């Protein structure tokens, strides 16, 4: 554990290498490969390692199954993004931020301490904000601004909750506290604002659709998972109060699918689908942990594929006739997210649905069918009969493809069920295609998003008093 923390401090130091034009590339490759190796080594271990960063009132760190999964997701997604970025011209500051992101993410995913979680979440918020505004166009700047205003308010509420918990329990360590009453509402509302649930975090769609594709991949693949990690980490301490979350998650999962289905802009479809999938994970948080990894893989793969399309408007018919090579790089992750068996998406959906109770199952199946319907146009279409050229960020695609298909060996027990869901989705897409029209974007405007967040925050606090 000590070594891992020290290694991350080395990562922070190596971020300075990003400023040198010559060392940029080796730094990105080196950090990615070393990180992947270290995380794979951690993955081989089992059991829980706990560590208190020095004595009384110290920072609690833990590496258990949850941490390992998030660490692996971060390692894979970050490496894929880093190697697909190398063909584009980068300035030093950007690489510096990217390397800081890796170190901060690694440290976040091993922390087990309310205040440490706050610090690292806020650090990642600032990094995401700076990465988003990097291109300097007006739209990403504005959506970054929205993101910062909403998330910083949410994190301040979280911090108020942390203070109240400290008042009641006298400690920040999550393993030794139980959270009851009003603070639970503050903590949950704060973290849901950061996580990316429909209604709570309406900044997400604009932000993820307006920044460059690689950064979108990083944001959707891992940045929204940071709040999710904190939420899942707090779940044992929250006890009964956590039941508020699946309630909002159901709304998010269903609304996300509906909005994604009606959308025509490729990246906005993916962003709405992210809202829906985060809800999908939080409906069944006990079994949904592995789905976090799956979602990280295929969503960042889909975002990397965005640059291969001639334009983002999926309503234009010419888009459907891509060359075979490009087609497969868009269709394969779409198949995976739709739940094709023997891919990471299909097998993790099985794992998620298997252990759920009676009220969760119909919702989860419905959302699965809906997701398949959203992504049906991408895989249920014919490619143009020519090979096309190999894209420049091909290595990133290969890395993500490897992790998307490694369940080929082993899982995929309920293949018929998964294929059934897939075909139901395709039929639903064919049947409902004529009803597709873009839904209004009223909720995403800053004024409405903040007001909505305020209302939901009050609702969370009231529910935590009575629940």
């Amino acid at each position, binding site marked *: 554990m000590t070594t891992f923390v020290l290694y991350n401090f080395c990562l922070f130091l190596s971020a300075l290498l990003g400023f040198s034009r010559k060392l940029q590339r080796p730094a990105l490759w080196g950090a990615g490969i070393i990180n992947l190796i270290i995380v794979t080594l951690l993955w081989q271990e089992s059991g829980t390692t706990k560590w208190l960063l020095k004595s009384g*009132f110290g920072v609690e760190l833990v590496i258990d199954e949850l941490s390992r999964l998030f660490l692996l997701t971060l390692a894979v997604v970050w490496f894929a993004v880093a190697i697909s970025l190398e063909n584009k011209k980068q300035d030093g500051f950007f690489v510096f931020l990217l390397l800081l992101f890796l170190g901060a993410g690694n440290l976040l995913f091993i922390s087990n301490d309310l*205040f440490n979680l*706050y*610090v690292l979440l*806020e*650090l990642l*918020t*600032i990094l995401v*904000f*700076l990465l988003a*505004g990097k291109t300097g166009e*007006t*739209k990403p*700047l*504005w*959506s*970054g*601004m929205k993101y*910062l*205003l909403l998330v*910083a*308010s949410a994190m*301040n*509420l979280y*911090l*108020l909750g942390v*203070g*109240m918990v*400290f*008042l009641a329990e006298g400690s*920040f360590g999550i393993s030794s506290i139980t959270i009851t009453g009003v603070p639970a509402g503050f903590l949950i509302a704060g973290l849901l604002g950061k996580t990316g649930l429909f209604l709570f975090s309406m900044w997400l769609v604009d932000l993820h659709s307006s920044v460059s594709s690689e950064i979108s991949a990083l944001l959707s693949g891992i940045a929204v998972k940071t709040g999710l990690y904190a939420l899942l980490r707090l779940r044992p301490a929250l006890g009964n109060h956590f039941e508020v979350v699946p309630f909002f998650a159901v709304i998010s999962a269903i609304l996300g699918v509906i909005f994604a289905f009606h959308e025509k802009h490729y990246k906005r479809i993916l962003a709405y689908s992210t809202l829906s999938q985060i809800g999908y994970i939080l409906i069944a948080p006990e079994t949904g942990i592995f789905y976090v990894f799956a979602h990280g893989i295929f969503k960042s793969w889909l975002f990397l594929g965005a640059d291969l399309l001639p334009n983002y408007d999926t309503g234009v018919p010419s888009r459907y006739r891509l060359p075979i090579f490009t087609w497969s790089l868009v269709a394969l992750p779409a198949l995976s997210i739709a739940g094709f068996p023997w891919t990471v998406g299909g097998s993790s959906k099985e794992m998620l649905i298997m252990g759920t109770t009676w009220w969760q199952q119909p919702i989860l199946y419905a959302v699965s069918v809906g997701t398949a319907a959203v992504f049906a146009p991408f895989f249920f279409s014919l490619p143009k009969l020519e090979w096309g050229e190999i894209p420049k960020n091909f290595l990133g695609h290969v890395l993500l493809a490897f992790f998307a298909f490694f369940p080929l060996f082993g899982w995929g027990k309920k293949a018929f069920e998964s294929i059934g869901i897939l075909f139901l989705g395709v039929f639903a897409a064919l049947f409902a295609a004529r009803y597709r029209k873009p839904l209004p974007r009223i909720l995403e*405007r*800053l*004024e409405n998003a*903040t*007001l909505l*967040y*305020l209302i939901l*925050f009050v609702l969370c606090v009231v529910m935590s008093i009575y629940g």
Partner: protein
Amino acid sequence: MTIPEIGCVFIALLGLLGVVLSRSLLMKIVGLDVMNTGVISFFVVLSSRSGNNVPILIEGVSAYAHPVPQAVIVTAIVIGFAILAISLVYAMILVQRLRSVDTERLERESGE
């Protein structure tokens, strides 16, 4: 909770209300800072629950302030300052380009 603590939470919520209700981007950022100040003072006030004295051993004094919340909140002050600084930079760029601080107008003119 004691009255000063409730007051601090109230200030923080007032800041949130400012973020929600104000239509000017700059006032929203100020609201965010007010909120942050409320949170910080909440931590400072709650650490004085056990006493007002500096947590250094002094003869004849038994009521010391709790050092831990004060220590950790320094980080939050720094983060709040960083967020204020970078959000003002972005706001400056946005205002320069779009010539307005009205959020509805910024939303309309920032493009699809």
